[in-house]
């Protein structure tokens, strides 16, 4: 094997804040070779981003860095700023998470892409425009000459990330650092971007360090994986070996706690507890309080295990665990479906019929209405008691607006919403207040949905106080019971939201939603902002609460694996409409709408073994502007089955023969029908 592009030995990073220094990286060794993708995976606070920043000397001056980092033959630690700057310009390319903030909004995209090369004197100003167009062409942006002259706001999210990749590749760097490059993108766009990144990497032979929290992405693209926990690498190895036979209990637990597309129902196996904060690491092995192998063994609590080779020498796997040999294989995904409680018998709790929410677009002059954004354009849905109905779709499809319209938070343009048989559209404020008691909302972002100036017990009690029910529900004792119900301790009373971790905050949000004893809970992406291990805890909690209290859930999410885990029925939305609705099993196993099929095939599966053979439908393009939707079927510009009929006539939403599904498509049918020519087989590079 050739010499590594990046070699890190004994890296340690402390952040000296106002108090004593906080160790963020505690001894990391890694090598990245040319033509290799190394994925660093870990939960928040594990130190994965800091490792990459330290490797390129990009950390702020408050960081104390020790150890040795050799990048492209140059020692980075202690190198003068001028050397570092040249190194970063020539040897390294960066791709960050959010393409909207990576690109400078006031410069044309083409100029930004070549700016670095011109500044480093490696490209003449006169040749820059041609080179920019060439680079944009390489990342498959149509009309590269024209696009190079445009500004970032004229690009869609996926195109911006492509431009960032072009920029990272501009200097033909030997190393690319990609920090969560697809986390901000929709799943169909993520598939496009990952695909592109891998192909460009194979063409240029660059090494890539890809930082992610998503094990599915890792399985899709990685050659080697490093799993980080508590500022150290706890396991590393080739991707196939690591997924097939993880040697560290944390890796195993992480894989088991993941909701997957190919399993259904039942409970997830969450990792108990919270990821440790860098300032307060447990003694000994930092994972031991959450580890099932540790189980009170004194050695785990006393002695930090070294990263050592485990298993066959040829496998190249290493784990930092005293008892790595005892680590069991991950349990195979449970395929046995629980006997679904037949909720169909129950009376419908919520009925949405032909719901429309249009927002007016106003002109700048005189604020005249110029048109409408059809955020929701004909959604019908029924939720029964004890049942979870999921609304799933990419960003901008109108799923959140649907949820907010049900809560009466946005005005309804057309259609009807009935709660327990009674229409709630156009209710006066006081009447709506009575309905709201029985209908509650859990927000996506636990960081912004709790009032920061209220102690947590007041946050949970607030709905009761608003309705004047605090005393009749039992006051502080009732609040304490709610806390226990969601797995928090009443000893936390008196503390403020910011003193809690993300998962704990979401528990507080759930307790608050349950305070009024609602019958329906609308969950808007309740786990999207949480770490994988915490996600599983919250999903289990939601399922337990549903069983205990007979709640109806309207679950809004973009993550198809999470939806599969929790749903009884699923409705797929595209551009304000439901395109397919069915029970969860049918929808995942026999999707009939081409959009559902492409969504499902775009989800990265945490199973590296099958990735080269997996047929995948990569959708071209992105979601159109909902203010000017395409005529006919709104999906036809991206659809691989589109015909002239699709361009002319919008399909009706009707039952699909032979399936318990309803579909809005002229050419609905199982995957593969009439689509074989368009399916792109993933060819191994």
């Amino acid at each position: 094997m050739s010499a590594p592009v990046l070699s890190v030995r004994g890296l340690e990073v402390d952040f000296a804040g106002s108090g004593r220094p906080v160790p963020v990286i505690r001894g990391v060794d890694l090598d990245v070779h040319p033509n290799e993708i190394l994925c660093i995976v870990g939960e928040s606070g594990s130190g994965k981003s800091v490792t990459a920043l330290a490797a390129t000397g990009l950390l702020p001056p408050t960081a104390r860095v020790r150890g040795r980092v050799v990048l492209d033959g140059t020692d980075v630690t202690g190198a003068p700023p001028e050397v570092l700057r040249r190194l970063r310009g020539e040897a390294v390319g960066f791709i960050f998470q959010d393409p909207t903030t990576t690109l400078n909004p006031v410069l044309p995209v083409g100029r930004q892409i070549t700016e670095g090369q011109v500044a480093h004197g490696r490209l003449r100003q006169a040749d820059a425009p041609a080179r920019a167009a060439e680079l944009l062409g390489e990342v498959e942006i149509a009309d590269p000459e024209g696009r190079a002259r445009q500004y970032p706001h004229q690009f869609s999210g996926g195109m911006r990330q492509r431009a960032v990749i072009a920029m990272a590749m501009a200097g033909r760097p030997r190393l690319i650092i990609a920090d969560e490059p697809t986390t901000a993108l929709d799943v169909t766009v993520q598939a496009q971007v990952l695909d592109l990144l891998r192909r460009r990497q194979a063409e240029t032979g660059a090494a890539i360090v890809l930082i992610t929290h998503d094990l599915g992405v890792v399985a899709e693209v990685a050659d080697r994986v490093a799993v980080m926990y508590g500022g150290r690498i706890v396991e590393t190895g080739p991707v196939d070996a690591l997924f097939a036979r993880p040697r560290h209990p944390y890796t195993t637990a992480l894989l088991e706690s993941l909701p997957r597309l190919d399993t259904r129902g039942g409970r997830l196996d969450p990792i108990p507890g919270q990821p440790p904060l860098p300032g307060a690491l447990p003694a000994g092995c930092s994972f031991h309080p959450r580890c099932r192998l540790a189980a009170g063994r004194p050695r785990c609590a006393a002695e930090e295990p070294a990263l050592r080779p485990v298993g066959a020498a040829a496998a190249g796997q290493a784990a930092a665990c005293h008892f790595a040999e005892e680590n069991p294989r991950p349990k195979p995904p449970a395929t046995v479906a629980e006997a679904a409680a037949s909720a169909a018998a129950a009376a419908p709790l919520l009925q949405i019929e032909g719901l429309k929410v249009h927002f007016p677009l106003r002109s700048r002059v005189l604020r005249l209405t110029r048109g409408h954004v059809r955020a929701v354009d004909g959604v019908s849905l029924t939720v029964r008691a004890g049942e979870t109905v999921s609304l799933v779709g990419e960003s901008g499809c109108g799923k959140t607006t649907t949820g907010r319209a049900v809560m009466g938070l946005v005005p309804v343009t057309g259609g009807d919403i009935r709660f327990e048989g009674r229409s709630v559209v156009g209710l006066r404020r006081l009447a709506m207040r009575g309905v709201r008691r029985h209908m509650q909302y859990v927000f996506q972002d636990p960081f912004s949905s709790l009032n920061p100036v209220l102690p947590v017990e007041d946050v949970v009690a607030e709905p009761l106080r608003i309705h004047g029910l605090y005393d009749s529900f039992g006051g502080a004792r009732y609040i304490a019971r709610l806390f226990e119900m969601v797995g928090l301790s009443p000893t936390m009373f008196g503390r403020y939201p910011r003193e809690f971790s993300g998962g704990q905050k979401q528990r507080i949000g759930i307790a608050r939603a349950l305070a009024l004893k609602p019958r329906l809970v609308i969950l808007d992406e309740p786990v999207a902002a949480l770490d994988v291990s915490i996600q599983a805890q919250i999903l289990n909690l939601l399922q337990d609460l549903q069983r205990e209290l007979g709640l109806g859930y309207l679950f809004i999410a973009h993550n198809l694996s999470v939806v599969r885990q929790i749903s009884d029925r699923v409705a797929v939305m595209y551009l304000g409409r439901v395109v397919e609705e069915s029970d969860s099993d049918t929808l995942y196993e026999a999707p009939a709408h081409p959009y559902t099929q492409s969504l499902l095939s775009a989800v990265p599966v945490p199973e590296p073994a099958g990735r080269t053979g997996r047929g995948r439908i990569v959708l071209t393009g992105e979601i159109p502007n909902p203010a000017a939707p395409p005529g006919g079927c709104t999906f036809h510009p991206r659809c691989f089955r589109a015909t002239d009929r699709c361009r002319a006539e919008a399909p009706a939403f009707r039952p699909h023969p032979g399936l318990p599904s309803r579909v809005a498509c002229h050419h609905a049918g199982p995957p593969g029908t009439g689509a074989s020519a368009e399916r792109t087989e993933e060819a191994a590079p």
Partner: protein
Amino acid sequence: MTARLRRLSLALAALLADRGAAISLAFLVVVTLLAAGAGWLPMDAMRQDILKALEPPSAAHWFGTDELGRDILARVILGARTSLQTAAGAVAIAAVVGIPMGLVAGYFGGWRDTVLMRFVDVLLALPGILFAMAIIAVLGRSQMAALIAVGITGVPNFARITRAQVLSLRSRDFVTAVEAFGASSGYAMARTILPNAWSPIMVQAIVLASLAILLEAALAFLGIGVPPPTPSWGEMLRTGKNYLHEAPHYAVLPGIALTLTILSFDTLGRAMSRVLEDRHGQAMPAGDRQEEGR
């Protein structure tokens, strides 16, 4: 309640870590105590002794005497009372009028916003001192008139800062949350948004206090402030400037008192906004989020 007290004392400790803020606060506390206890001081601000007019500072009169032989130190201390009273009253008026205006304008938007903010623009378009003079012309010369005049000129500051806060908080999930529970708009504004907007409003109050003291002094200097014989720093500057040659201490010492007070309020305000900014920066524990795009 204890948790809130703890938070307050933490904020105070952070503020006092700034040396400038600590000195300013100490100075303002001394000035306030002196002004409050002026009646118990041994000197008499009103007793005239024409034979000892315009004497330089001495052991008997630390700040010297004025043209009627009155003790300047006693008058400076009583003048502090006038200044602080006017400032406090003016800030209170500005806050009571301006904060609800900003809340309503920011929360509801639309025509209410347009009407209220155009009114604020009109107030801002008029030079403060001219506007205050006009009000005093209508109300007659009294401390209350000065207080009201200065207060009204401060309304736009509160209205604007409150509105800006409301606009940024309005779409936050925790505000949507109380609306989803069925809270009234009044509840959302007063109980949810306002408590989250306090910090910049407090800073604004401190800054406005220094402006109010300055404006009050300016009005007095023009001879339309607090009527004599009530001592006021502006009034003393006005008379003192006639004796700049014979008795420079007469104008200079009240001037120094005025300058130091304004400077202290200003330093305090700036330190407060810095402390609050820091605290906001820490509001989200970094370890919790996906460590994204730092």
